[in-house]
């Protein structure tokens, strides 16, 4: 008799519990010590988190600096499990999403040139590399995990990521990226071994090579294609609009800019007109499933910044409402106090936030560094007045490492 799902989760919990290693006080305080021991943010990149101490009395954390991307790229995956796992959609299911929807950081050419291929994927073995007109495809095996990585290395970027083997065996390991040519995109994927497998797209039949790799351009007027795999034909939604993603549940979709660099999943919001004396100094985001972007505005005091923090998600108003946060209406948008503590302004941070669209929630935040205290006019009202200035401007953003300053 099959076991109920609740029972199966209980079994998983039992095993999971055995893998929980309790923390202790020394370790907790050691985390504080580690700041002093690793003044260089890159020095702790291998721990997948970088922490930098800036002068006594303050700290800042740096997320995924560019130089660290090399070291963590092989670790990128979905929360909990192998990334790229996806529904084994039945043949009559109309649409499915890309298998590599969990993104891998793209690398700039300078960084890319320094990376030995084997370092792209941690604990993985290069099975084969195939040069094609669209770039070099590389397949990696993971001896210690039921997954396979497929990467497309191009002049300007590396695209792809790990895919669970079940997805591959079911014939559903594919990805669709934009910007291949002016009016087309690029679809590619990995076929299962020993299967009668082909892709029907725009009236053409695409078959994988002997390594299982297939790729093809997809004109922008093509709205779907069909994978003929082990479970029969599966229709894939290739509508350009839908590849941007319309749902905010699960990992955000991966899209690419015309240069092949992965775009953020959220709307790239900046301020059309920042406050007097403030200018946009940088706007960077981390690609991938937990994509976060911060636009930094600098002003007269170098230790005080105005930031626009964009994140992916749709439940912001619900969360704010559930915890009873103060909210205002500004130009028809509901804006919440979303700062630390109870949401009211602290001496060094003051923040409001709103749900911009289905995929994006954003915060506008005054923030003081190095112990700097905010000026009296850096208050909630000043932030609310900036809400009408929010606009989406993709050109302002770069997929660099994320810094808080």
């Amino acid at each position, binding site marked *: 008799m*099959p076991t*109920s*799902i*609740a029972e*199966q*989760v*209980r*079994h*998983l*919990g*039992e*095993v*999971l*519990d055995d*893998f*929980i290693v*309790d*923390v202790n006080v020394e370790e*907790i*305080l050691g985390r*504080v*010590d580690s*700041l002093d021991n690793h003044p260089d943010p890159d020095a702790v990149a291998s721990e*997948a*988190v970088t922490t930098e101490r800036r002068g006594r009395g303050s*700290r800042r954390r740096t*997320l*995924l600096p560019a130089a660290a991307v090399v070291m963590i790229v092989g670790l*990128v995956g*979905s*929360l*909990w*499990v192998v*990334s790229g*796992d*996806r529904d084994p959609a039945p043949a009559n299911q109309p649409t499915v999403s890309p298998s590599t929807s969990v993104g891998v950081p793209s690398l700039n050419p300078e960084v890319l040139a320094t990376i030995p291929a084997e370092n792209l994927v941690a604990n993985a073995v290069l099975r084969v590399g195939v040069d094609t007109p669209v770039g070099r495809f590389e397949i990696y095996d993971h001896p210690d995990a039921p997954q396979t990585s497929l990467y497309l290395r191009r002049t300007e970027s590396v695209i792809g990521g790990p895919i*669970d083997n*079940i997805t591959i065996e079911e014939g559903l390991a594919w990805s669709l990226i934009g910007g291949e040519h002016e009016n087309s995109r690029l679809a590619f994927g990995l076929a299962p071994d020993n299967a009668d497998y082909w892709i029907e797209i725009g009236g053409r039949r695409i078959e994988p090579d002997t390594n299982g790799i297939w790729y093809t351009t997809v004109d922008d007027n093509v709205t779907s294609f069909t994978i003929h795999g082990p479970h029969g034909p599966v229709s894939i939604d290739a509508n350009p609009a839908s590849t941007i993603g319309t749902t905010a*549940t*699960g990992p955000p979709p991966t899209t690419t800019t015309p240069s092949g660099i992965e775009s953020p999943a959220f709307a790239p919001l900046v301020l059309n007109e920042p406050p007097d004396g403030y200018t946009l100094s940088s706007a960077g985001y981390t690609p991938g499933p*937990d994509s976060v972007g911060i636009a930094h505005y600098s002003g007269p005091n170098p230790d005080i910044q105005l930031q626009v923090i964009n994140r992916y998600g749709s*439940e912001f108003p619900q969360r704010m409402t*559930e*915890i*009873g*946060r*103060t909210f*205002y*209406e500004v130009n028809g948008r509901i804006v919440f106090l*979303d*700062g*630390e503590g109870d949401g009211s302004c602290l001496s060094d941070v003051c*923040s409001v936030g709103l749900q911009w669209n289905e995929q994006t929630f954003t*915060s506008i*935040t005054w*923030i*003081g*560094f190095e112990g700097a205290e905010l000026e009296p006019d850096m208050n909630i009202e000043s932030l*609310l007045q900036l809400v009408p200035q929010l606009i989406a401007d993709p050109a302002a953003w770069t997929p660099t490492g994320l810094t*808080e300053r």
Partner: protein
Amino acid sequence: MTETSSVTRPLDSGIAVADWPRSPVLWLMGVSQEGLPSGEEFTSFVRRVQPRLQRGLVATYGPDVGRQATVDALSWAWEHWDQIRSVENQTGYLYRVGQSASRRYVPKPLPPELLGELEQRFPDVEPRLVPALARLSTQQRTVVVLVHGFGWSQADVAGLLELNPSTVREHLSRALSRLRDQLEVANAHEYR
């Protein structure tokens, strides 16, 4: 523009900004510092808060990132002792701090050893269960793992996540429904 509600509870804003005005080294040496707990006080606090906090974060982020986020959250508690000691729901508050901290870590898959042990000890567990759990929303996954995996009551989960119990119930219901769909389990298999 009019204020239409008032607030009283904490929230993770995604912003990790903190001062480090105190020395853990001096603290470990027993040097008294203003605003810091005594050694006994903090140790007792960790013993009380850590188990539920860590399981909550593990349910959300897995054992590796969940553990790191726990250490970060408790580290934050140490340096913000004056603040955390006045919070009523300390575990729930620190769970949000841990959520914020987790953004600094690259998500990791469940360790292969864990999956191997699961398969060995419980061969009846459907191999697609873990991938299916990963496809749930974060809150759905957290709720279903805490309730069915770790045996928490729905009220306890509501306390940790600072949600209404009815919301937790809804998350649980939807999570099980989605798992059933993904694992193609017949409706005859009961909810718990």
